[in-house]
């Protein structure tokens, strides 16, 4: 066990953090809004942690104390929330693919700003020597796992209450939702803001885990990766993104381990080791082809009554 944690501790924490980021994309998706802005808010959270812990509350030696760490989480959530409300009210006027493009632009603006304001953010090099509040990499599971569990509980409960139902209505049919008194813009911005706050908080934890932060940690690549988590895992239940985020984060490491198995032909082992990103892409494509709704679908859980025999189902009128 000790050895396992020694080797895979960092991976386990990363899996949990990536699953949390997947949920941050799922939240706006609950209201039907495809936002790829999560890496941007993740980056903001990381810079909040990096700046506060190295400039405002610097420690000479030893562990970084917990109160300023909690304060960083609070500041990141607040700042990301404010930015998200401002961005949301403008960007969420767009729909579908246009919204996705606009949110990618948000990620890029944040990244380029981080490069440009060198005095503040350290430019391309970023900020290093971010102090460690915990002491071991696996120890971060003590923060990451409760955050993920809280986010899962929050999302699960949300889907079963008034606000979550308003999100669902917007995802299903925005016009019909408005016609029953749901304010589309307000609820879209709320869903977008919740996702942004979650991504920002995740960034704070990541910054301390990695002990360094730079602009390459919040990019368009990240947007696509997080989108892949949700698509592979399934976009219709909160469990889908969590499973997708964990699986896809573990997959490259799994392939690497597989390459080390004795008795594999040289070429196959080489392929698994060097081309794991190619295989990763192939698996995503296969997943999309064979599990178009993702691995986890609502049908796995929902106790739905079959249509009675005397009332044959008719296609939905559209």
């Amino acid at each position, binding site marked *: 066990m000790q050895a396992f944690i020694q080797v895979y501790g960092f991976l386990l924490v990363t899996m949990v953090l990536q699953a949390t980021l997947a949920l941050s994309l799922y939240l706006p998706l609950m209201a039907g809004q495809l936002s790829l802005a999560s890496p941007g808010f993740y980056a903001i959270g990381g810079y909040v942690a990096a700046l506060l812990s190295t400039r405002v509350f610097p420690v000479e030696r030893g562990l970084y104390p917990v109160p300023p760490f909690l304060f960083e989480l609070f500041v990141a959530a607040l700042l990301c929330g404010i930015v998200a409300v401002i961005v949301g009210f403008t960007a969420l006027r767009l729909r579908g693919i246009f919204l996705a493009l606009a949110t990618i632009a948000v990620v890029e603006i944040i990244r380029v700003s981080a490069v440009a304001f060198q005095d503040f953010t350290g430019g391309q090099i970023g900020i290093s020597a971010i102090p460690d509040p915990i002491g071991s990499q696996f120890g971060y599971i003590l923060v990451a796992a409760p955050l993920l569990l809280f986010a899962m509980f*929050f999302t699960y*409960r*949300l889907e079963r*209450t*008034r*606000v*979550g*139902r*308003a999100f*669902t*209505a917007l995802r*299903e*049919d925005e*016009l*019909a*939702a*408005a*016609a*029953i*008194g*749901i*304010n*589309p813009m307000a609820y879209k911005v*709320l869903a977008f803001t919740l996702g942004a706050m979650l991504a920002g908080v995740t960034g704070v934890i990541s910054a301390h885990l990695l002990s360094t932060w730079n602009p390459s940690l919040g990019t368009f690549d990240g947007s696509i990766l997080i989108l892949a988590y949700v698509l592979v895992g399934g976009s219709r239940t909160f469990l889908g993104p969590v499973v997708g985020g964990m699986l896809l984060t573990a997959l490259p490491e799994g392939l690497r381990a597989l390459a080390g198995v004795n008795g594999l032909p040289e070429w196959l082992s080489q392929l698994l080791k060097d081309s794991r990103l190619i295989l990763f892409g192939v698996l995503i494509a296969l997943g999309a082809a064979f599990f178009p709704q993702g691995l986890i679908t609502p049908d796995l859980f929902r*106790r*739905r*009554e079959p*249509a*009675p025999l005397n*009332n*044959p*189902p*008719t*296609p*939905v*009128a*559209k």
Partner: protein
Amino acid sequence: MQPSDSVPRITTPKSAGLPTLEVHNIVRNFGGLVAVNNVSFGVHKDEIFGLIGPNGAGKTTLFNIITGLTMPSSGRLVYDGRDYTGEKPHQIAQKGIARTFQNIRLFGNLTALENVMIARHTHTHSNLITGVFGLPPGPAEERRTREKSMELLDLIGLADRAQMQARNFAYGDQRRLEIARALALEPSLLLLDEPAAGMNTNEKAGLSDFIRGVRSDFQLTVLLIEHHVPLVMGLCDRIAVLHFGDLIALGQPTAVQNDPAVIEAYLGDE
């Protein structure tokens, strides 16, 4: 019964109930096409008001204008004495104006019960915190929402299939489910866009009684678009006839039926 208004003008006889909805000189252009041309009428409280006319007469456009989905090019809308021209659909719904759609717009992937529960939105108040963490008024409100929604499903006879996905219902059931969803808003004005469309003869026969029952049980005013003439004639207190965007007749069914302009519009002048 209201005295008949044989000319299309906004008249509210002193003896009649006050108009709850007033449409004043509404015009809507789509490019060069005039879909609704200077239409004015008032719908009185508690009446069933029919809007008829040949295809393309502008009926659905007028419905969309009244519910805020389409902005009028000019003209004013008044509800309960207050001008609400230019307000957004959700604000208009919050005033108590609910509607159904010609091409049913249920939340197809959700269950019948969920469809109705969502429509309790304006009458419930739990927010992010009280809802998620089950704090008052969250849980009690959630229970009431469920009870109320089941009552409505019971009313339309779908209570036993509350957990069935909306898209799996027969066409007529979908239409009634959409009415139940609209009733969940506790509206004072209910707009029905072709409620009988796609219904079989049996369902059509039951529809008149159903709409009358709804009107008296829920004490609301009904404004409906319908093509099925016998239904309209038997059901409506007053009827307005649209033809190429113009209001060509307004009054009691018998008067409208014999109006030369209406006969010409429906039969053509050749």
